[in-house]
């Protein structure tokens, strides 16, 4: 029997394969939206995102994740952090959370971790240099920590500061970047459920070269936004200075969202090499997390605020 297509059905009516493959996320998302309508709280909104948090793409090997790092505190070459970070002492370790909040506090790292519900998040990581990995982090949403100190209405941004300890961080003996390393997020980016503080990798304690004992992971931004070995998290009113932006403001913007349409002045951001793969692949807007985060930037000119 010959089955004809209805003449009014065109290619446009066929569900895009990538959308089809993500159908479960929408179902999850829809359920979450129901919760959102019912509860109207931010945490319910978090639940709505949950089914899409981890990617099912093949994970980059632990060897590559722990031996190919940009962590200039330990040297500028990719193999330097794995070779030099052994000297870093991550205990005792105190993280100061302060600024525009009701309850500023200093946390011992173990107490801080104990108070959080840890979960695995398998995220893509896109480096500004044009390579990417898939990394199984263990961590907790940054928003949980921020909620603990009760931010005031003046908390518009969050500033992060990395440890400054040249005796254990040989790279800090040279002014390649302005030390200590600083990073920053807008408060809505920082409290977005995708944004986590990682304390582990591949189900194990975070290796020093990956930013032990506590590092930021913002999967829709270039990797350098993920401050490592954090000692201070400050809620602030003004947009904070960030290390790479201070070094080269034309090349590294405050936002630094992964964006194939905005090239780095010296190289294209249209493609990336997934570590372990031979051919380059297309880079996705917001590193493929656009469905969760594009709303944060509605109305903004991302070419200007790159």
């Amino acid at each position, binding site marked *: 029997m010959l089955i004809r297509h209805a003449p009014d059905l065109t290619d446009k009516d066929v569900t895009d394969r990538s959308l089809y493959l993500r159908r479960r996320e929408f179902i999850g998302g829809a359920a979450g939206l129901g919760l959102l309508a019912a509860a109207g709280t931010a945490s319910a909104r978090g639940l709505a995102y949950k089914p899409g948090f981890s990617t099912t793409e093949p994970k980059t090997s632990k060897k590559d994740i722990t*031996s*190919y790092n940009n962590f*200039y505190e330990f040297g500028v070459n990719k193999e330097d952090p794995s070779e030099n970070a052994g000297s870093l002492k991550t205990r005792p370790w105190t993280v100061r959370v302060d600024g525009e909040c009701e309850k500023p506090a200093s946390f011992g790292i173990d107490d801080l971790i104990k108070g959080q519900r840890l979960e695995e998040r398998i995220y893509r990581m896109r480096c500004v240099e044009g*390579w990417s990995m898939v990394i199984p982090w263990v961590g907790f949403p940054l928003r949980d920590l921020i909620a603990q100190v009760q931010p005031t209405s003046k908390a518009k941004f969050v500033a992060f500061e990395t440890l400054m300890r040249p005796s254990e961080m040989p790279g800090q003996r040279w002014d390649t970047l302005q030390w200590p390393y600083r990073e920053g997020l807008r408060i809505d980016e920082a409290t977005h459920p995708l944004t986590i503080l990682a304390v582990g990798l591949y189900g194990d304690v975070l290796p020093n070269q990956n930013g032990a004992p506590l590092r930021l992971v913002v999967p829709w931004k270039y990797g350098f936004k993920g401050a490592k070995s954090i000692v201070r998290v400050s809620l602030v009113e003004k947009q904070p200075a960030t290390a790479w932006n201070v070094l080269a403001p034309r090349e590294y913007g405050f936002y630094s969202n992964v964006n194939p349409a905005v090239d780095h002045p010296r190289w294209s951001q249209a493609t990336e*090499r997934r570590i372990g793969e*031979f051919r*380059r692949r297309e880079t996705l807007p917001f590193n493929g997390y656009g469905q969760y985060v594009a709303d944060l930037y509605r109305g903004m000119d991302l070419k200007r605020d790159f």
Partner: protein
Amino acid sequence: MDASVKRAATRKRPSKTQDNLVYAAVWLACLAPLVWLAWRGFSGDLGANPIEALIRQIGVWGLRLLLVGLAITPAARILKKPRLVRFRRTIGLFAFSYICLHLLTYIGVDLFFDWGQLWKDILKRPFITLGMAGFVLLVPLAVTSTNGWVVRLGRATWQRLHWLIYLIVPLGVAHYYLLVKADRRPPLVYAAILAVLLGWRVWDAWRRRVRS
């Protein structure tokens, strides 16, 4: 013939075998980095991103050989070993080979022959524009490196053409300098060596003018 003159003549002109041995050593030295890189590549020692490591390393060796080539004339003069100059061609051609390989790896492996992207890179990325310009200028020097071309062009014209190297090597150093993200020390080391090698030539020319 006076015995001392005879001795001097034999000392200045080493035997054919000796000469071949020296050439073999120069060849081996020039090939060693490539063999080393290939071995590291096959044994998986080039890190998580071997393609980038390979492109970078081959390029850096091309630059190093260009600088060695530029160092030969001053070395021959300072050490009073004029016959060193005969290695300039070998080393220059090896530098050219490394740079060809560097470019081929970039186009063939990194871009996977995406000519449109290559063209965009050349137009939009200053470090690629400069690197490409350096390569293009290097081609006529490689082509005219034979004795036949020296005769065909005439010594003076050939010499003038090969002065292009004073432009090409700075282009190479600039190419390296512009691609570095933050730590400018390594390219600055090359820039400093280049400055010494070019500075010596300026000083030498000035000294000769004063003397004559």
